[in-house]
């Protein structure tokens, strides 16, 4: 069945006994590159397993390139998958492994060998491809995994935490390969719990937590959504009690506390329900009162907190 959509998820729910992996997930994605962003345990791997047909949804329908993925061999020719875990054969060389996986795509022996060599070279594995995988570093393994996923030139490439364990140079190289991939018009879905890893590859995000799709859109759209969300902020100030008082007076904070620090000024820890308003008014409040501020930072900049905020918005809580 022909479809304009890369992926269609229609009220997809996946249960593992009483544990919810994916919860009433709806999405329709056109061909392109997407980042699937969520903290650990958010349901990213379950979603990817549903997309690759390894799992059957408990409820709802999954369609990839217009087809149901489960036991669909014609669809599997169009999908390249790089899982989050390693699962490589230690005693086998990267070249032999990629070759055999290519042969499972129906490619003839010699052609598979040549193609495998080309793809391994493309990911920077020219020198090590004939060595046993047990001698590879973590980064080399990740690159070998990527090579097997792109070797058969799939229409859709699905990557689960591809940057995991890579050093900065490895990350940059991997990003280059993937950017090149998307520039050639191929589709990409990349799952990660690190925002900046995905930002380097795509501007389209799906934010998932607790098995639910919390938000989707571009980075600026997501930032806008988060702009006025509740958050905690820390300010190191010369007059912490006066600052706390001023914030409460202007109703910019719902609670404040002063925490002494060993060096420098004490810290005002505040909780606000209107972060956007606070960020707008804080500079004038500081200058008007003649405070000296040495540091301002979000106290809850972890991705999990961000997702908790989104989850609350999703539930209609404040």
């Amino acid at each position, binding site marked *: 069945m022909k479809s304009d959509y890369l992926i269609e998820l229609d009220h997809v729910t996946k249960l593992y006994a009483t544990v919810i992996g994916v919860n009433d997930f709806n999405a329709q994605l056109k061909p392109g590159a997407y980042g699937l962003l969520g903290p650990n345990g958010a349901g990213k791997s379950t979603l990817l397993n549903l997309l690759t047909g390894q799992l059957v949804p408990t409820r709802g329908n999954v369609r990839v390139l217009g087809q149901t993925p489960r036991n669909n061999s014609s669809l599997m020719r169009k999908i390249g998958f790089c899982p*989050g875990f390693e699962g490589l054969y230690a005693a086998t060389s990267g070249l032999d492994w990629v070759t055999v996986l290519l042969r499972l795509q129906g490619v003839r022996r010699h052609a598979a060998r040549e193609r495998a060599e080309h793809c391994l070279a493309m990911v920077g594995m020219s020198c090590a491809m004939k060595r046993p995988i047990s001698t590879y570093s973590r980064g080399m393994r990740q690159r070998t995994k990527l090579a097997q996923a792109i070797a058969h030139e799939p229409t859709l490439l699905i990557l689960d935490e591809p940057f995991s364990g890579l050093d900065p140079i490895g990350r940059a190289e991997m990003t280059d390969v993937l950017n090149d991939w998307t520039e050639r018009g191929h589709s990409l879905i990349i799952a990660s719990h690190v925002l900046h890893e995905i930002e380097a590859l795509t501007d389209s995000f799906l934010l998932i937590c607790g098995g639910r799709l919390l938000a989707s859109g571009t980075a600026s759209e997501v930032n806008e959504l988060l702009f006025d969300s509740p958050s905690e902020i820390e300010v190191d100030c010369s007059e912490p009690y006066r600052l706390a008082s001023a914030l409460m007076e202007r109703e910019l904070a719902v609670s404040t506390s002063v925490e002494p620090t060993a060096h420098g000024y004490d810290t005002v820890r505040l909780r606000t329900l209107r972060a956007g308003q606070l960020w707008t008014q804080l500079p004038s409040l500081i200058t008007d009162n003649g405070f000296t501020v040495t540091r301002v930072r979000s106290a809850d900049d972890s991705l999990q907190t961000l997702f908790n905020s989104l989850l609350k918005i999703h539930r209609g809580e404040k």
Partner: protein
Amino acid sequence: MNSIMAVFFFELKRIMTRGRAFWWGVVATFPVAIMLLMKKYVDFGPQEAATPQTISTVFTIVLYFVAPTISCMLGALLTAAPAVASELEQHSWIYLAVRPNGLFHLIVGKYLVAVMWTASATVTGVIIAVSLAAVDGPADVTAAVEQQQRSNSTDAAEMVPGIIDKGQVTQAMVCLSFLSACAYSALYMMLGTVFNRRAMVLCVAYTAAVELFLGFFPAVINRFTIQYRLRSLLFEWTPQSEQFRRLDLVDLVASDESAFTQIMWLMSWIALFLAIALVSVQVREFTSASETDV
């Protein structure tokens, strides 16, 4: 076929390790060692039972029990039983599962490797065991015939065919070993796929309870075992086992149907076992993600 052969040769290369070579040697040596020990230490004595035919019957029956039965079971257990479980445990399953018909090719390819590994080890053991341990050669024949005459047999010449015919026994045992390797590999492949979490333990338990206990149980239930069919073929293909065959009890644990019928039964079992394994991997949800990694 290209994909099956790809898995076959890849897996064949993977099992060429020192550890696997050691176990191949163990499987091949087992029948040789047992038969040599039997030849050296089992005393058939001067009693009436120690006729050349008795000796060859005992040799044939014991060789059948150690080679096409125990060696093949052991070989298949080592190769076929963990085929699926090992892929799941080391998380390599997913790479094959996302290939077109990847799991079908994996199961069939690994099955062929298990058959080849098991059959080659057992056949090697059979050939060496028959060469080294069988009662044979002019001296042995003469001694056996003389012994037969001393035991007041009416026609010593009639007993001579009872002496091991190496070619015939080897041929029969090689065929039985190959069929046994095919059948047990399919059985263990099925059990290992359906019950992948405790594959080895379950295969051993099944073998002991069904193949070795029920298979020898004098009731209709034994007809549903691989052992029953292999044993029936043994009696069909080896005249040496004739003396044993005449025992009343044996009628209950072996069939007198033709060899073709027995082979068809075995082929049906193999097809059924592999079909169950293949359906199982298509229907079930195997994911390599760790439990916390939802």
